[in-house]
């Protein structure tokens, strides 16, 4: 590096001082504002602002919703509540499909002669499935019971479907 280049490199950047001052200023402000937002008075003020907003919008919200509801009903158009119910039904159907998927997985596993899960895992799996299973209406339960024999007729051995995951059974199968 020549002397001229070295001198140029040593020249102070005019913006450097500005950046230093700016950063110092922001740091002070940052600490001050963090203390402010972490105070009870800020919590009280923000809570009051939120309440004011909710109070101000409340008189308009319900009449607007009622008017929209009436309009949609007169036009025979589904409301958001209808869509919400429909979405709930779809989710329920998805869960039923997921339950079937779980059963099929287990049947496939048994048919392929895979090593069965240990008794502890089997119990855990069952309890997880039981907790995951949504409460189906009586009509749905009847339908699923009606469908059960058809699974057997499709080729699943009766023994397999009726087999209980008892400790003794699973050990025998493992051997």
């Amino acid at each position: 590096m020549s002397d001229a280049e070295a001198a140029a490199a040593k020249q102070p950047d005019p913006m450097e001082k500005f950046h230093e001052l700016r950063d110092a200023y922001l740091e002070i402000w940052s600490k001050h504002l963090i203390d402010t937002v972490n105070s009870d008075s800020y919590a009280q003020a923000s809570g009051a602002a939120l309440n004011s907003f909710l109070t101000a919008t409340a008189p308009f919200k319900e009449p607007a919703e009622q008017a929209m509801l009436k309009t949609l009903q007169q036009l025979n158009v589904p409301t958001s509540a209808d869509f919400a119910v429909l979405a709930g039904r779809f989710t329920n159907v998805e869960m039923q499909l997921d339950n079937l998927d779980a059963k099929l997985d287990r049947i496939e596993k048994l048919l392929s002669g895979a090593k069965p899960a240990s008794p502890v895992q089997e119990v855990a799996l069952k309890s997880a499935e039981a907790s995951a299973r949504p409460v189906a209406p009586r009509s749905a339960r009847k339908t699923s019971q009606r469908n059960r024999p058809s699974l057997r007729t499709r080729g699943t051995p009766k023994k397999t479907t009726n087999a209980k995951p008892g400790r003794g059974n699973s050990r025998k199968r493992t051997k």
Partner: protein
Amino acid sequence: MEQATAALDQLAILEERLKTVTRVMTSKAPIAQTPKELVWTLNKAKLYRYVPVVPPQERHPIPLLLVFALMNRPYILDLRPGHSFVEYLVGKGYDVYLLDWGAPGPEDKHLKFDDYTLEYMPRAIRKIKALSGVEELSILGWCIGAILTTIYAALRPDDGLRNLILLTAPLDFSNKEKLTFGRWTDEKYFDVDRILATFGNMPPEMIDYGAKALKPVENYIGNYIKLWDNLDNPQIVESWHAMNTWVRDNIPMTGGAFRQLIVDLYRNDRLMKGELVIRGERVDLSRLRANLLTVIAEGDHITPPCQSESVLGKVGSRDKELYRVHGGHIGIMAGNGAHKRTWPHVEGWLAPRSN
């Protein structure tokens, strides 16, 4: 003449800088690029499996499930190529799954922790077991995802969970002095039922404001100054762009879950007290027996370290470790130093426990 030329040059540079700022602030960065396939869905939730890049004989047999918070997109774990935790894990031979909770609609406002932990998670986990052919798995939960995984792990200890990694987990709400969110949502000032009656779900704008207002200068000013100062560095600009894309992409939190977060956890600290009840079952942390790694961000302003430390004394795990990292709530996993500190430590802990 020379001065005029120099001034024109300066103007051209300024124009270029402004164009870059406009681009990164108004467009979406290409994120979540690691190849994956959708393997399961339920309502808005989706389970993805990342395509392995390591030969089967070199892979770890125990799959890993990633569970992120409810009110942010989970692609922070797969932010951009070369800077993705998921990509890193897949490269290390893990069978990685990601549970994306999705964006809840008004019809989901009643969804609670109960549904997420005992309806969605067990089903997703069953699918993982069926796909991987293994009866055990590891779970990594981050932020509220860590609350959900902790509850699940305590309620279903025999469901095959071998390893549990908690990142910046807000579990202990006893130290009211250090919890700014707790102060804001105190029942004296914050009427959670009235808010949820108005909005149904907690609006993302309010959640975003809450997170940013904890450090107002850094989030509203410092962040943009950092961009302006580094506009000549394409690497920093692209990193900023990707992070800004994620920060702006907020989603609502279901009303039921938000109410539980405020009332059961922030106000009453029911999880640590052993009083939290999920679908009639009391969550007893001593039943959590999985190997446990808790990662704490020392500079975390959203989940202060005091919220994650005490869980180690409550769980029944024999193999447990607390790891402290210098950084913030998101920075420890998605910041520039994450691939040098947090990722290798998490992977180093998980590897011998995944075989």
